[in-house]
């Protein structure tokens, strides 16, 4: 394995080790700066709400206030003059009243007589020339409903969106071989993406029935498809233009399709541009969240720490409509055993419908939920075995040649051992763990104040250290990429300019910076010589959605291949000269050359969607995290002081941007572990504002150190496996392990709030709490 470690510059800021023997001086020097950075830093960048369309009206959505009901009538107040505004109901939808997705279960608007399935579900739309009029008329629409009994418990729901069973070996034989069998149940709740720019979409009607939407979105062609379908437009009549996008994290994967269709319906009815800009309250109340999950483990392990049996049950709460739930569940199930070899495995997973707002994509896409459970279960097993968490991982982590539960043989690009070793060494894990164990022992020995075992008259805080390890399937699950058949293009135009044409969007991760780097490197031209075309369906091909950490790996790979072909073509007649010498003249004399590169299946990678056998992912990324926490012994408040994140991304394209992904993902995981909690009452989010749904501030954030590792994937020309989601999988279990290390209780229900920790401590009483263990 060729593993390369990219280290941070030293304290003096003098060296950034990019490749063996290549040292760039200083920070970003030697690396391209963020392409759209200057615009973002001067306020010139135009996000959707910054765009001006003269004469535009304002749009609003009339939503249900019940979790489940029959929509009996929509009654505009007859005292008002409704000719001054535009009201749209399901009856006005020219195409299908369906939000284009995996299943056709979600309406654009609930029709009269139809069933309302969640709180804040769109029932009707309104547009007015100004905001005051909009508010006045919105308050004058009466919605008549007939309440139906809702279902909120995903385990009680009889409507199953998807279910999978994955298995290998002989579970019974495995448990028979085990010396210890541990059962555990883990629960995680909703998590809000909380992009700082809310959902925003502006629809602009054309003169001949065509409609363009400009908005904050991840996937131009998802929105394009939704518009065509619901508005009854052809591919040319529907146009989607991405505005600068202020964060997304999966939250702008599928939901923007709904808003775009809403805005387009209003715009086509009133004949004016319509702005649909969600305020924060509406955004949190109505849009998708990370799926809550219940994960149950029964695990058999030998005395020497070898996993011999894993019986895993995953239940995800899909919310009221299918959205992307089957694929979220699939990824969650496939990752649920963690990155460990185990000969006997059964994974049963199902996702059901409840009367809560639909859940959807969020960084990690099902894996953070199940890997939190897997890692916490393994840490508890280590505790039972009186074995170091690092040691039990070292004994079980996948190595080259191992086989996963789907029968996938890991042939290359396996860096689990490497990231584990770097995390353990880089954090002094064992030494610090000895210290914290000693401190916990002393507090327990002192046994002075309630909660007795932990509080002494001297200690006000306890510190702990925790470790987690994860894998993350690179790109789409199974044959998703093959079905998609993405196209990316590189073009040399008639003025001698080089342009990358992709539908992959920039939402902060650095798309617009890394694509010119990849293409310029192939062509041998300066990075600045390569432009990126706007993400506008009128210009760019469908290179697939900007999701699943697939952009650098899959679309980046396509662009490299396209650039190689372009180079060969330009150099063909002049084998003695380089592309860099030739291209400007070539473009001007021979006219434009455009290379469209279509995705070809990675060689040797096959997956059967029916049986769930085969290569679930072309490769995996590997991540480890070590968290250090400090816990206030009076209040049980957790302060995460430090996280060391070690991530194998295959190939680091831009070290600073790559680190930025790891740091940001790590903090989202810390928030998931500690403070981010969505409370529901009767199917409604109670804390649907930023004053009540908390995300970490700069003071809550730990010091984050990143080590990047490169174990390249041979299927991608550059070896990249993606980075965005990896850090999200490991942060939460590392933090929860650190809490357990500090105070001796395992929090199995995220987030680990002070209330839960205090309750667990009270529960634990004197002796340290043990899991349900049966000696076999």
């Amino acid at each position, binding site marked *: 394995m060729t593993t390369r470690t990219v280290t941070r510059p030293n304290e003096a800021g003098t060296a950034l080790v990019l490749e063996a023997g290549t040292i760039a001086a200083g920070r970003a020097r030697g690396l391209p700066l963020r392409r759209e950075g200057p615009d973002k830093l001067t306020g010139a960048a135009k*996000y959707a709400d910054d765009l001006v369309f003269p004469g535009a009206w304002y749009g609003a959505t009339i939503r249900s206030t019940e979790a489940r009901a029959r929509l009996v009538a929509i009654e505009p107040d007859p005292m008002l003059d409704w000719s001054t505004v535009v009201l749209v109901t399901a009856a006005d939808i020219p195409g299908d009243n369906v939000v284009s997705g995996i299943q056709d279960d979600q309406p654009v608007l609930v029709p009269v007589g139809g069933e309302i399935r969640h709180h804040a579900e769109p029932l009707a739309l309104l547009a007015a020339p100004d905001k005051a009029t909009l508010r006045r008329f919105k308050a004058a629409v009466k919605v008549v409903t007939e309440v139906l009994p809702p279902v909120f418990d995903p385990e009680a729901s009889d409507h199953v969106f998807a279910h999978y069973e994955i298995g290998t070996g002989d579970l019974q034989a495995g448990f028979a071989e085990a010396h210890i069998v541990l059962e555990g149940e883990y629960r995680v709740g909703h998590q809000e993406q909380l*992009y700082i720019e809310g959902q925003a979409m502006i629809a602009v009607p054309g003169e001949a029935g065509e409609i363009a939407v400009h908005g904050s979105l991840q996937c131009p062609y998802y929105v394009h498809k939704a518009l065509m379908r619901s508005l009854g437009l052809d591919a040319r009549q529907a146009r989607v233009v991405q505005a*600068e996008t202020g964060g997304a994290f999966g939250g702008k994967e599928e939901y923007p399709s709904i808003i775009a269709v809403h805005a387009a319906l209003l715009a086509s009815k009133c004949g004016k541009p319509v702005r649909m800009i969600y305020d924060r309250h509406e955004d949190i109340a109505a849009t998708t969240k990370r799926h809550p999950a219940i994960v149950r483990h029964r695990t058999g392990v030998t005395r020497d720490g070898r996993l011999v049996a894993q019986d895993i049950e995953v239940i995800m709460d899909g919310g009221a409509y299918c959205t992307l739930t089957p694929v979220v569940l699939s990824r969650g199930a496939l990752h649920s055993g963690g990155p460990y070899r185990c000969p006997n495995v059964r994974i049963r997973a199902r996702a059901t419908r409840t009367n809560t707002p639909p859940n959807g994509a969020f960084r990690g896409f099902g894996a953070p939920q199940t890997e939190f459970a897997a890692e916490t279960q393994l840490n508890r097993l280590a505790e039972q075995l009186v074995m170091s968490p690092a040691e039990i991982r070292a004994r079980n982590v996948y190595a080259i040649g191992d086989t996963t539960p789907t029968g996938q043989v890991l042939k290359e690009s396996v860096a689990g051992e490497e990231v584990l070793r770097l995390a353990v060494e880089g954090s002094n894990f064992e030494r610090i763990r000895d210290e914290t164990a000693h401190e916990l022992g002393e507090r327990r020995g002192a046994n002075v104040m309630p909660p007795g075992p932990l509080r002494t008259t001297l200690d006000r805080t306890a510190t702990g250290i925790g470790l987690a390890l994860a894998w993350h399937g690179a790109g789409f699950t199974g044959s998703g990429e093959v079905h998609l058949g993405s196209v990316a293009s590189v073009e040399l135009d008639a003025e001698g300019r080089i342009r990358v044409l992709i539908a992959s969007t920039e939402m902060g991760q650095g798309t617009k910076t890394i694509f010119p780097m990849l293409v310029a490197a192939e062509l041998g031209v300066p990075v600045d010589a390569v432009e990126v075309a706007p993400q506008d369906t009128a210009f760019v091909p469908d290179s697939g959605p900007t999701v699943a950490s697939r952009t650098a790996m899959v679309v980046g790979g396509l662009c490299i291949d396209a650039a190689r072909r372009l180079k060969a073509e330009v150099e063909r007649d002049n084998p003695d000269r380089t592309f860099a010498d030739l291209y400007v003249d070539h473009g001007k004399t021979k006219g434009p050359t455009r290379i469209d590169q279509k995705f070809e299946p990675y060689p040797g990678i096959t997956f059967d969607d029916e049986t769930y056998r085969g290569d679930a992912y072309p490769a995996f990324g590997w991540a480890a995290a070590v968290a250090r926490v400090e816990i206030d012994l009076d209040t049980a408040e957790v302060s995460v002081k430090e996280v060391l994140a070690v991530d194998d991304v295959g190939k680091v394209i831009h070290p600073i941007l790559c680190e930025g992904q790891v740091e940001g993902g790590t903090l989202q995981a810390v928030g998931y572990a500690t403070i981010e909690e969505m409370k529901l009452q009767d199917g409604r989010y109670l804390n649907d504002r930023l004053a009540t749904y908390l995300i970490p501030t700069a003071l809550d954030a730990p010091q*984050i150190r990143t080590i990047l590792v490169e174990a390249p994937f041979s299927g991608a020309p550059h070896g990249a496996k993606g980075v965005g989601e990896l850090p999200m999988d490991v942060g939460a279990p590392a933090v929860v392990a650190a809490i357990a290390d500090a105070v001796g209780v395992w929090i199995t229900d995220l987030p680990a709030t002070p209330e839960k920790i205090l309750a667990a401590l009270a529960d634990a009483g004197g002796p340290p709490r043990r899991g349900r263990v049966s000696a076999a």
Partner: protein
Amino acid sequence: MSGYRFLVNGAPAEVDVPGMRRLLDVLREDLGLTGTKEGCGEGECGACSVILDGQVVDACLVPIAQVEGRIVRTVEGLSLAARERGALDALQEAFLETGGAQCGICTPGMLMAARAYLDGGGTDDDESIREAIAGNLCRCTGYTKIVEAIALVAGASGTAG
């Protein structure tokens, strides 16, 4: 209704709007200064941070009536001097170099909070910087590189930014 007069980025402005209109709307809609962003509309996220007479405020919580006769600085005014040379100012440059801006939506507010901190003599001390930007939420960066950028500028200019 009488107009409200104030200075924005060194230039006089006058708007004839209701006194309770938010400074944020006046900047964005009446003056076309869309660099200042709205993230929550209730003073939690800091995306609309501007500097009012040297102090960082959330423009979504300030009615225009309170701005009469005062001095407002927004992100558009940050690099006025530098822009003449076709460059970013030192703080913007530092954000660009360190990777302190990702999606960019919190960036204008973050820059204003950082500017006020540096103008107030803020040092490159990690904890002090984090305190200074604690009212500005960022969901992309984990704050590491933002803190690094501010420290870089504070360190380069001694104790007083």
